[in-house]
């Protein structure tokens, strides 16, 4: 009877990591120890999910550890572990580590549950669990006024869209009399059904910063510590995409109007995100807008409403999250203006080359993760004859190369403005913390491995869908 419930062990481990981190005072190594313990537990959780096999639906079908959930949970727990590892090495600027780590772990647990959700209530609670810690993470430097402003903006917009979403959920319940995804049917619900779905989607789209709900992202990111952005801009997106595939495929599998909704949002996000990213001088703002653009690519996969599309979306969410987190962590180490990266290639050549791998993957150049992600996305959209959307996506991808290569240019040909480069300031070479180096190396390895090793990953995704 209880046999299947061990599938929730990974979530339990991540929550345990959060609580242990909160009581970091009592751990060996204290602040740093808290981050290491959380990283280790999240890492074990990721491995457990990855190799633990698929489970039957639990709690009367309210959560379902299936193929998509396995993929998303592995990625969420894995990225949370890498992030905590990086924090163990570098810390949060001017603040304690342990609260940040605990918040990230709570958010990850929420994201992992969210990606298994099969019920409106579970989905809503998990979504809030993954978002509320993010508000705090974004405002982590409590004396930084601009950071607080950005976080407040994020909080208000996020709350507003959550409320809109609940409104939509109430309609869904009203139409079908049930909160379980598989019992909700919008057949014959007509316009009311569409309104209900769109209102529900507003909440999810806003959290993933899709146009036209993207306004909060650049301001919130630009005010927040880069390390927080690295987490908040990537991990919740995976969970959001996972639950969206589940929700849409079960409650509104064939709703022709949704094609338009997704296609419009995708097109607007791709164009707005990529064009707005071009002139940005701050890495956080640049990545915020590029995040909008990547959400646009992701939504493209929802337009056809096909299984191939859902698989492609979840795969791409991970293929985007890994290098994107890495670039933000790089900004956390080296400075947030694009020009701060000047001369990185001479200063830290391995890091600069890893950054080339991440950026090139974000552009979508083979054989890295981003290329295969985009290949599946384009394939899914093209299979449904959405050629205009595909052409728009490839053109905007080329635009994105323009701003990603600004960073490459700066790293290799920009002037070195760092403290060590200024003569007479005493070139004290600080040894790099091994933990953060390991975290970045893992992210670089994953960017290559997800691309070259796409085959087994797709196999695990497709296991449940086909």
């Amino acid at each position, binding site marked *: 009877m209880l046999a299947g419930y061990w599938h929730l062990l990974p979530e339990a481990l991540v929550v345990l990591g959060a609580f242990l981190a909160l009581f970091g005072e009592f751990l060996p190594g204290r602040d740093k120890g808290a981050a290491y313990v959380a990283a280790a537990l999240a890492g074990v959780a990721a491995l457990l999910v990855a190799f633990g096999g698929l489970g039957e639906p639990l709690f009367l079908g309210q959560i379902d550890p299936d193929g998509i959930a396995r993929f998303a949970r592995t990625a969420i727990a894995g990225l949370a572990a890498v992030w905590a590892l990086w924090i163990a090495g570098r810390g949060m600027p001017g603040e304690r580590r342990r609260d940040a780590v605990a918040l990230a772990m709570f958010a990850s647990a929420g994201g992992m549950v969210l990606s298994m959700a099969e019920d409106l209530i579970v989905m809503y609670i998990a979504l809030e669990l993954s978002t509320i810690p993010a508000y705090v993470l974004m405002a982590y430097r409590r004396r930084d006024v601009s950071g607080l402003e950005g976080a407040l903006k994020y909080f208000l917009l996020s709350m507003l869209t959550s409320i809109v979403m609940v409104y939509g959920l109430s309609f869904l319940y009203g139409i079908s009399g049930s909160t379980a995804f598989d019992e909700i049917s919008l057949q014959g619900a007509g316009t009311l059904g569409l309104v209900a779905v769109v209102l529900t989607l507003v909440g999810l789209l806003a959290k993933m910063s899709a146009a036209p709900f993207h306004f909060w992202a650049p301001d919130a990111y630009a005010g927040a510590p880069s390390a927080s952005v690295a987490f908040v801009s990537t991990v919740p997106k995976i969970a959001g995409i996972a639950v969206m595939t589940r929700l849409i495929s079960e409650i509104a599998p064939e709703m022709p109007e949704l094609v338009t909704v997704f296609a419009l949002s995708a097109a607007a996000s791709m164009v707005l995100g990529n064009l707005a990213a071009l002139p940005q001088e701050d890495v956080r703002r640049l990545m915020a807008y590029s995040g909008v653009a990547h959400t646009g690519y992701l939504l493209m996969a929802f337009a056809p409403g096909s299984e191939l599309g859902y698989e492609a979306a979840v795969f791409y969410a991970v293929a985007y999250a890994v290098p994107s987190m890495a670039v933000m962590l790089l900004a956390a180490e080296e400075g947030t203006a694009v020009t701060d990266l000047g001369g990185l290639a001479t200063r830290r050549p391995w890091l600069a080359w890893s950054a*080339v791998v991440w950026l090139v993957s974000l552009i979508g150049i083979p054989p890295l993760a981003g290329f295969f992600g985009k*290949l599946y996305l*384009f394939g899914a959209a093209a*299979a449904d004859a959405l050629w205009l959307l595909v052409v728009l996506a490839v053109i905007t991808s080329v635009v994105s190369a323009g701003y990603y290569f600004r960073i490459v*240019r700066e790293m290799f040909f920009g002037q070195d403005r760092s403290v060590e480069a200024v003569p007479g300031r005493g070139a004290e070479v600080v040894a790099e913390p091994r933990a953060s180096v390991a975290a970045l190396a893992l992210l670089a390895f994953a960017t290559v491995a997800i691309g070259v090793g796409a*085959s087994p990953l*797709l196999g695990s995704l497709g296991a449940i869908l086909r």
Partner: protein
Amino acid sequence: MPPLLTTIVFLPLVGAVVTALLPRQHTAWPRMAALVVSLVNLGLVTWLAVRFDVDGGLQFVERAQWIPQADIQYLLGVDGISLPLLFLSALLLPISVLASWKISDRPGFYFTMLLLLAVGMNGVFVALDFVLFYIFWELVLVPMYFLIAVWGGPRREYAAIKFFLYTLFGSVFMLVGIVALYLHPAGGTFDMTALVGAGFPAGFQWWVFAAFFLGFAVKVPVFPFHTWLPDAHVEAPTAGSVLLAGILLKMGTYGLVRVSLPILPEASVAWAWFVALLGVVSIIYGAAVAFAQPDLKKLVAYSSVSHMGFVMLGIASGTPEGLNGALATMFAHGVITGMLFLLVGMVYERTHTRLADEISGLSKQAPVAAGMLAFASFASLGLPGLAGFVGEFLSLVGAWRSELVPPAFVIVAAVGVLLAAVYMLWMVQRTVLGTPSPAVSGISDLNRLETAILVPLVVITVVMGVYWSSILRYVDPAVTALLAATGGM
């Protein structure tokens, strides 16, 4: 011993990794490593060419499942169309390494990029799975970006990103075409050999051809997609120019022959006049602009646009002569333009100018360099008896015989041959003859290493020009097979 083609493609990758990891204080090690790798690579390709059966069709095929969910395979193979280009790529690599012998700025980085570039160059000509093909196609972008942007001329960063963005723009449309072929009910695979004669409907072919053509045309480059080329060539270091003109441009026309003709035969017929038109415009435009160039490197760059126009014309004709001519021109242009870029680089190292007006009387001061330059120029303008003539002659004959290319185009293209003679001979007259200018007086002649780099290219130019079947014996059976597979055109 792993399979031969895999070894050829990935040996430079191993070399690149090793070169990147060499200790930085030994500045001579990277070039030695690169030279050894490139010579072994050339040896392997030569061995492959010796064992190659000219009538055997597709050979040395390696097939393995890679991503079975999407039917993506690891599929390599070589035939008479790709073998000359693979050989050219293997030949120009050690020459580029030797031409870069004096690179002192971050040599490890430089030779790593050069070897990485070689992975893409070798791979593109042997990949027979579309995804694999696209991977190798894009793989050349990043190393070439760095070769131009780090070791290039004064406007190197601009030229590098322009090259990158233009070619990326073209190739993403190629990706759309690849996806379209895969998704079409008649396709359903990324296997290029299986898609030949798949019988796609003509309307569908028309669109897919357009998508592929955009990718190929930017790479070739054909007028009006050529604007990245002069910038990239002028700013690139000598080895970069040699490989850019010698190999990277050929990837575009190779794509037309490998993908568009066999897989989209009806669209190739429908588009033939347009391809031919762009070819002819490129011939005349390239020649006219080359004529007006004071900068020698730009002159050679624009002459490339002109020569690649002949290749386009030959391909558009769809006749055996035209295709043989196109493939022969591709090989010959790689060798001859390589020579020209090497010579311009060598002269520039001595005179510190590339302006034709400031260089004169080379023959008195540096007779070997002058002789080589004159020889390469004659070969480039298509002097009978040298390699350049073979392909251009056959391309024109093929185009004349073809029903797809209006005769007027061929007449205009023939005028292009004349123009090539004019701008090349005028260049030779200004630089080689006359009394030594201030920039030239006092310079040394080519040293032994530089001569040794050029001699193999000279020999190949003569042999191919005199003994046409040295290349046609590989190309012709493959062209016949290609035309037979598509039912003639």
